[in-house]
Structures are given as structure tokens and as C-alpha cells.
């Protein structure tokens, strides 16, 4: 048995534990224990992975396990990891760990809340270790469904509308993905032989170009919806605004990465020929998305909307980099996913904490909060600086890798797209500093805020975990970058073989 299975077993055990917990406290502590195990396990996985690579194990996929699940259709339960998925698992475990602490003061149906939250996480973990398209899709759906309940029941504002909108749009995406996956399945053996869902096997066959052209848009847009591809991103602001804190964190931090990861792992990797041909269309969309999200954020007044639009901008950069289809940019894409994941989780956690204290998310109604809640204030500034790509934080590493990578293309189109996308660093600075200025600095506007209590221990736990994540990557990015690069090598070989060698 591969120990990767533990990534699914632990959440399931935690859920069972929560089911048998008696009190509110027990529920929370069960969740903490479960997710701490998950975090430790992820650390252990990173260690094992790096050790195996250092020991000269060059297999494309490590720790794999293949079980037949449904023989007639050749569906397998096939799991394994490479550098990229290890990194994504690390991200997920950090965000869910911080998320548990950020939802410490959920008092309404805590048992159900934590169950859904952890089920969601289980889906995400499953997604990242799956190498069989069927299993992958299954976990994808497991991750998306609890979202509806979490927003619909524990959300705020127009939560039913938002939950419905989010779920329907993502389901629309799922429908496209399913068609795309079936397309892959039925073309997985062009030379005859058994059809397969096995991702690695499919990557080794040349799917006929007409089929590639037909199915690529399904897969890319389908996953793109979740990755906030312009113009299919509008579920994101509403959904995030209504979602409870931990759900926003998990959703923006991890779930949106399923989209980016899917685009990279399924759409571009398995259909590289079509990807080369059609990249330009989506490049235009993502370039628009990068700038559009940033400008959209400037005008917003609700903290969550600001962060949601900021996420649109940052996630568009992920897809942008994936479409550049060279090793450096692709590496940047993965790092941007991780960086944005932790960063945005930090933001949503802080916004939740601020909202819990001020009972408003409108920046105009706040002001001078730095004075009464220095810890949260400083954390917000750190998050902001990370978000605008300050060196020393993960965002800088990711963005620079993306820009340098994209700039390796020697034609005007790619160059112009890169420069437009790069100019987002200025716009980002504008909206971040605007929020920091209005929200935290200046004088306290509302005298009631004088009685605000700064972060409690569980708030600190959550915030510190996330900040450690972004600074660790930002200060010493080499190990992460090399690990991802290692995972990317076979993928890039395959992608470059299929298309023109790009400079």
C-alpha cells in the first residue's frame, strides 16, 4: 500500500472522529489533530520525495499505487506524486490547517461545518494524488459539492444566491470537463487496444489532432472556470463574499488551484498539440484577466470583493503562465498557485477576523485599525506586501519566474502579453496600498472600534502558519523551485515534442 492513501484516510478518520465527538470543543480539537497529522504527513512526504530524488530515483511518478477499480471500463484507482503534486499537497495541508484555526469561533452546527470542511479537503488531497482521470474527476466533484452546503448554510449576505451561482457555474465547468475526459478516454488508444483513463499512459500516446482540437477547449475552459478564467470568473466575487472565512480560504487558496492544476495536468499535458495551436486565444483572455481583475479590485469597497478580484488577477497569471508552455513559466505557474494559495488564504483569514471584530467589511466604514489591532494590522500589511510581489515573500518569486519565463518567447505577441501582464504589479500596488491606507492607517473613525481586542491565540495560530509559509518560500525558494522543476521535466518534454520548440 502506498502511504499516499493516508492523505485520504486521515480526513475520513477525522470526519468519523468528529461524528462521535460530543462537545463543540471536542469537534474542534479532533479537526485540529486530524489536520495537524495531515500537515506533518505533508512535511514527511516532501522529505521522502526529496530524499528519493537525492538518492537517484528518477521515476516520473513516485510512491505510486495502481488498483483496478472497475474492470469493464478499465477504471483504476491510480495514485502517485511528482514534484508538482507534492508541492500542491503541501499547500493544501497548510491552508486547511490554518483554516481550522480560522473557523474556531463557528458556533452554528460546528459538527456539520467541520465535517464538510474536511470532506472538501479530502477531495482536494485526492485530486492532487490521482493519476487516473476517473478518480481525479471523482475527487474533483467531492471537493466542489460541500462548497454549496458550506456557503448556503454558514454563509452571510445573499448566501443562497451566491451558493447557487457558484455551484451552478462550477457544475457547468464540470460538465465540460466530463465531456473532455470522455473525449480523452475514447481517444486514448488510437492504435487499437483497451481504452484507459490512466493519465500517464494517455500522455504517451499521440491523440489525433482533430480530437485534440475538439476537446482541448472543453478541458481548458472547464478547469478554467474554477481557475477564474476571464470571463467565467464571476462566481468568485459573490461566492467568496458570502462564504464563511475558512471556506473562502480553502476555496480561493486551494480549490481554485484545482482549476490551474487541471489546466496544466490534463488540458495542456494531455493535449499539447491543440494547446500549442489554441494557446493564443486563451493567452488573450488571461492577459485581460490579469489586468482586468486588478483594475476591478481598485473600485471595490468590500474587503472580500477586493480580494476576490485580486484573486482573479493572480489566478489569471497562473493560467497565463501555463499557456506560455515553457519550463520556466510553467514553474512560475505552479509557484504562483502555491504562493497565491497561501497568500489569499491569509487575506481571507484576516478579513474574517476583522469582520468578526468590526461587523463590517466595507473599507469606508473602517479606519485606523492598526492602532487597536496591531497584530492583525501588521499581518494584513505583510499579506498586502506579499500580494504586490515584494521580494522576500513567495509572490515575488512566482511572478518573476513567470515573467522571465514568458519573456523567453521571441515574438511580439508573447512579449506584449508579458509586458501587459507585468504592468499589473503597479495596479496591484495601487489597490493594496489603497486598502491598507483606508483600513488600517489614519485615525480611528468609529469610536466603537476603540474596544476591539486584537488577535486571540487561535487567530495567531492561523495567521502565523500562513505568514511562515509565504516567507519560507520567499526567502529560500530554491528547494521548492527545484522540486517543481524536477516534476516538470517529463511534462515539458512531452509538451515540447508536440509543438514547435519555443524560445
Amino acid at each position, binding site marked *: 500500500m502506498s502511504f499516499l492513501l493516508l492523505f485520504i484516510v486521515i480526513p475520513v478518520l477525522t470526519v468519523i472522529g468528529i461524528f462521535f465527538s460530543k462537545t463543540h470543543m471536542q469537534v474542534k480539537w479532533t479537526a485540529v489533530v486530524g489536520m495537524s497529522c495531515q500537515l506533518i504527513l505533508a512535511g514527511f512526504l516532501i522529505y521522502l520525495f526529496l530524499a528519493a530524488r537525492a538518492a537517484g530515483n528518477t521515476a516520473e511518478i513516485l510512491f505510486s499505487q495502481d488498483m483496478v477499480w472497475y474492470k469493464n471500463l478499465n477504471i483504476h484507482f491510480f495514485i502517485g506524486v511528482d514534484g508538482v503534486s507534492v508541492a500542491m499537497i503541501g499547500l493544501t495541508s497548510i491552508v486547511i490547517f490554518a483554516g481550522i484555526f480560522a473557523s474556531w469561533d463557528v458556533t452554528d452546527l460546528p459538527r456539520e461545518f467541520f465535517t464538510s470542511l474536511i470532506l472538501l479537503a479530502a477531495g482536494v488531497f485526492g485530486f492532487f494524488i490521482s493519476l487516473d482521470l476517473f478518480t481525479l474527476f471523482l475527487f474533483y466533484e467531492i471537493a466542489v459539492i460541500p462548497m454549496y452546503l458550506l456557503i448556503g448554510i454558514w454563509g452571510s449576505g445573499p448566501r443562497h444566491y451566491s451558493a447557487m451561482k457558484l455551484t451552478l457555474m462550477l457544475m457547468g465547468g464540470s460538465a465540460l470537463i466530463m465531456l473532455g475526459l470522455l473525449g480523452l478516454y475514447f481517444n486514448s488508444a488510437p492504435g487499437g487496444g483497451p481504452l484507459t483513463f490512466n493519465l500517464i499512459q494517455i500522455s504517451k500516446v499521440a491523440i489525433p489532432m482533430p480530437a485534440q482540437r475538439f476537446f482541448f477547449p472543453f478541458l481548458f475552459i472547464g478547469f478554467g472556470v474554477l481557475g477564474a478564467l476571464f470571463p467565467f470568473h464571476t462566481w468568485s466575487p459573490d461566492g467568496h463574499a458570502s462564504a464563511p472565512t475558512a471556506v473562502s480560504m480553502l476555496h480561493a487558496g486551494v480549490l481554485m488551484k484545482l482549476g490551474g492544476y487541471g489546466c496544466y495536468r490534463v488540458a495542456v499535458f494531455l493535449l499539447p498539440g491543440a494547446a500549442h495551436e489554441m494557446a493564443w486565444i486563451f493567452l488573450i483572455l488571461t492577459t485581460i484577466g490579469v489586468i482586468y481583475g486588478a483594475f476591478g479590485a481598485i473600485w471595490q469597497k468590500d474587503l472580500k470583493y477586493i480580494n476576490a478580484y485580486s484573486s482573479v488577477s493572480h489566478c489569471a497569471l497562473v493560467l497565463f503562465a501555463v499557456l506560455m508552455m515553457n519550463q520556466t513559466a510553467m514553474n512560475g505557474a505552479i509557484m504562483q498557485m502555491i504562493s497565491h494559495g497561501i497568500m489569499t488564504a491569509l487575506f481571507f483569514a484576516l478579513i474574517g477576523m476583522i469582520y468578526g471584530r468590526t461587523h463590517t467589511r466595507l473599507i469606508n466604514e473602517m479606519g485606523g485599525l492598526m492602532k487597536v489591532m496591531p497584530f492583525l494590522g501588521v499581518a494584513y500589511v505583510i499579506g498586502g506586501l506579499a500580494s504586490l510581489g515584494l*521580494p522576500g515573500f513567495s509572490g515575488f518569486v512566482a511572478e518573476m519566474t513567470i515573467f522571465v519565463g514568458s519573456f523567453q518567447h521571441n515574438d511580439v505577441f508573447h512579449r506584449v502579453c508579458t509586458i501587459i501582464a507585468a504592468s499589473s504589479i503597479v495596479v496591484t500596488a495601487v489597490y493594496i*496600498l489603497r486598502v491598507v491606507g483606508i483600513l488600517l492607517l489614519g485615525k480611528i473613525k468609529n469610536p466603537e472600534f476603540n474596544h476591539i481586542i486584537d488577535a486571540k491565540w487561535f487567530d495567531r495560530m492561523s495567521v502565523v502558519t500562513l505568514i511562515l509559509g509565504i516567507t519560507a518560500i520567499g526567502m529560500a525558494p530554491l528547494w521548492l523551485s527545484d522540486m517543481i522543476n524536477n516534476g516538470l521535466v517529463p511534462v515539458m518534454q512531452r509538451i515540447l515534442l508536440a509543438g514547435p520548440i519555443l524560445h
Partner: protein
Amino acid sequence: MIDFSYTIWILLIPLLVFVITGLTGNRFKPIVTGIIGTTGLGINFCLALFTAYKYFFVLDKVGGAFQKVIGISYTWLHLTDKLHIDIGVLLDPISVMMLIVITTVSFMVHIYSLGYMKGEKGFARFFSILSLFSFSMLGLVIATNIFQMYIFWELVGVSSFLLIGFYYEKDSAVAASKKAFIVTRFADLGFLIGILVLSYTTGTFDFITLTGPNSPAFTSGQGIMFLGMSTMTWAMLFIFMGGAGKSAMFPLHIWLPDAMEGPTPVSALIHAATMVVAGVYLVARMFPIFHHEQSALEIVAWVGGFTSLFAAVIACTQYDIKRVLAYSTMSQIGYMMLALGVSGYGGEEGLGYMASMFHLFTHAFFKALLFLGAGAIIHAVHSNYMNEMGGLRKYLPITHATFLIACLAISGIPPFAGFFSKDEILVAAFHHNKALFAMEYLVAGMTAFYMFRLYFNVFWGKDQHYHHTPHEAPVTMTLPLIVLAIGSTFAGFIPFTKLVTSDSMPFEAHTEWGIAIPSIFIALIGIGIATMLYMKSSDTSKKIATALGGFYTAAYSKFYIDEVYLFITKKILFNYVSRPVAWFDRHIVDGTMNQFAYVTNVVSDRIKGFQSGQLQQYALAFISGVIALALLFIYLWTN
């Protein structure tokens, strides 16, 4: 070969101090944080001196030239097969010189702040960020490659942001910090694009390769690309844009005067002596490539020259003493840029380069002194406005004496430091471009004028009604003034031509009296006019201002550049881009999605009656169906 690997501690010490003081925050008594910070910087100062000694006097020269030494280097990130970012220490004459400048001024400012910031609420925070700044600035100057420089470039930007916004409850400070960050960030976008172009064309970030005699930058990217300039010229121009932003060159200067909202020691350290000269340092660092791309260098010269004039004109009209000094800084940095712009490469040809670095060095002393002096004045009278001051020489003797030295130094009166460096710049300009040279003569006169306008207004004239009798600053504040005054007096005698030159080869310097003597006269004329107008309070100056009319108003309003920016950002970007984008997103993009939902809803509404949950209805439908089918079958059967 000497082992320079210890130089990494020059970076690590301030970083450690920052982390320690940042994390412990207010747990210590504030003064403890202050002492930790100051001690750290003190050690750094000694390390820098030691390194300079070893570098200039112990290390063997190769072919008579100072070598470029990589003290230590780590790979930080792999980007492509060829490109990788390193973090390391590069020692060459200019970086070693900058180490001295930064650590000296920073050390002095630390000591000064112990007195100046006493009793401030954010005392610990102040020292903590000061360490962050020192770390970033030192990392910037010892960068081994352009990407490391960019990394630290951004970090100095953020420390500047944090320090300008130090009084974060004051709206003007918050606005100023935001402005500084965004304007320089915009310039940094240019820098980044420049780096991308340069690194793509040459395949390296490394300074030694890039500026060496066989630089790939000389051969690649030479074809005409756009608007009649080659790729490499464009790359250099973009990089210069970054430098212009940080060094407050026109038209990216608007953040610097506002940055005076920060505490005065910060203005002295960051916005006078160190960070703002980063742009000059950047051009000097890349100088061989700039020199190869003459059209880019020409632009550097003109931007520098114009800025120096432009800022000098504004400086003559301002009343806030820190703003006068800020515009003066801009003007002096303009000098340095100009000197680089008119420089050749190698030996005597590279006089401009040497002069620029020389002026950077001396300017750091006297400008830091001026700012710290201004801090002592503000400390004494609690005002920034020179028209609320007067007659202070009686109350602040040490400040007065040191301030006067600095004023003489900046005006270019021998034997003070500014004379020597400014003179070399004028000589270099004379041999290259007569128009620029004439402009700089004019600026020299104006510099003397506005500095003495400030000096007389503050220290002479009538006493004003002060809240309490002004008193001299404590010794922690006067000691740095004295040290810097000594520097401002004697720094001019350092034989820069032997130490810091464009190709690291020493050459013989000689003063061209034909240029030097008129420049002294011009300075004296400037001082003379200032003496006549301001030594005794009179309203002659007001009359002149009225006579100048519109021009005076325009200069007083800083030529309305701020308003232009406000128009572009607030009116155009905010109202005509951002707002429509937000509207478009909510109504068009999202509206379409909602329309889908709405249509689905309507359709389902029309057909939902079919599934009402009423058994009778189902039974009716069922039986009707059965009957209909039965009829159909019967019909088919019978035929």
C-alpha cells in the same frame, strides 16, 4: 588573494537586527531596541571600513586596476538554463565606496535618532525598519547581478514606504508613503522590463560578465528595433527609468518632496544620502553598457541636467525647509546623473564618471548634515516653515556652525567638499556639451542662493515668537552633526581619481582653474544676493516674487506636475478605467451569467407544473397516458 567571504555579515547583521527587533517589538524598553540597532550598525560601519581598507590598500591590483571581487555568492533561484539569480557580494571600487557612505550615514542617523525619536510611540518600530532599510540598501550596492539589485531595490522601496508613513495616523504621511511607493513601483516596472530585455538578449544577469570588456551586451541586441533605437538601447532606457524613479528624476520626481512627511532622520538617510542615489549607482554600475549605447547615455545626461535646473528653480521658492532640501537633493542628483551622462570611458575620458561618484560621496555627507541640522532646528522650534523661524544662531550654536559648513559645501566654496566634486562635474560637462555646462553654471549659482536663503531665514533675521525658548539638541544629536561636518569639510581631499574610476585604473587629476574660479564667483554671487535679500528681514524678496508673477506662482506650485499626475490617476485611471471595469464586470459579464440562470429559471417555471407532487394529478396523467397508448395500439392493431 584575500578572503572576503566575511562580507556577507554586512548583510546578515542588519537583517538579524531587523528580525530580532521586529519580533520582540515592544517587549523590550524602547531604548534597548535603539541600542541594539545602533550597535549593529556600528559593527557594520567597522566592517565596511575594514573592507575598504583591505580592498583599496591590501588587495593586489591587476595591471594597475582594481579588480572586481566576488566575496561570496549563493544561488538563490534557477530560472532558465542560463539565467539564475544569485545572492552574493560584489566588491569593486564603487560598491566599496557605497558601503562606506551607507554605513557612515546610517550609523550617524542611528545615533541621532536615539535623541531625535526619544519618546516617540513607535521608537522600536522605527529602529527596526531602519535596520531593514540598511540591510536592503547594503544588499543593493553589493549585488553581484542585476536581479539581486532588483530584489533589494524593491526592498529599499518598501522600507522607504514604511518610514515615510511612520506617523501613520497622519493622513498626509499615509498619502505621501503611498505616493512614493506607487510612483517608484511604476518606475520599477520599467526596470523590470529592462532586465527582461537585457537578460534575454545577453543570457546573463551577472554584472561582471555584463560590464566586462567582452560583454555580450556589446554584441547582441544591436539591430534597430523600434523608433530607430536598438534593443540594447531600449533595455538601457528601461533600466534607466527604474533609476530615474528611485533617484527622483523629472518627471518621476513627484514623490520625493512629499516623502519629507517621514521623520527627519529618515529624510537624511534615505531621501538624501543613500536610497535616492541608487539610480545614479545603477547607471554607474551598468556604465560600460550605457557608454556603448550613446543615445541612452545622452538621455541620461539631459534628464539629469534638466532635473537639476528644474528642482533648483522650485527650491528657491519653497518655505518648508525640508522641502527646500528635498528639491536641492533632486537638483544635486541631477548633477550626478549629468556627470555620468557626459562621461567617457577609461582614464581621463572617464572624468565624469569619477566626478559623479565623487559628488555622490561628498553630497551624502553634506546633505545628510543639512537634513540632520534641519531636524535639530525643527526639534527646537516645532515648525517646518522658515518664515516661522529667525535668529536661531544664538540658541543653536553647534547646529548653526555645522549647518553653515554644509551650506558652504553644497554651494561649492573651497575648501569644502562640494567644491571639488562639483568642479569635476563642471569640467566633464564643459568638455562634452556646452549647453549643459552653461545650465549647470546657472544651477550652481541658484544652489548657493537657495541654500543661503534658507540659512539666513533660519539663523539670522528677527526672532519669532516661539512656544518655548529654542535650545540646542542633546549630544546624541549634535555628535553626528559634528562628525558629518568634519566629513563635509575634508571629504573633498580624498583622491578619488586614484580610487574610483570608470575602468578602475587610477589617473592623475588636475584642477582646471579656468572653470573653477568662475564657478566660485557664481556661487559667491548667489550667496551675495541671498545675503542682501534675507540677512535682514526685508520685503524686497516679496517684491521680486510679485514682479516674477506667473513664473513665481508656477515654481511655487512645483510647476503643477502633481496636478497632472492626479488628473491622470484619479480622473482617468480611477474614473474612466477602473470604474467602468467594475461596472462591466457586474453588469455585462455577470449579467450574462445571470441571464442564463434566469432563462433556465423561466423555462423550469413553465414546466414545473408537471411535477406537482399531487397523486391525483399523477394518476390522471398516468391513466390518460395509458388510455392514449391503448387507443394508439388499438388503432395500429386494427390497421
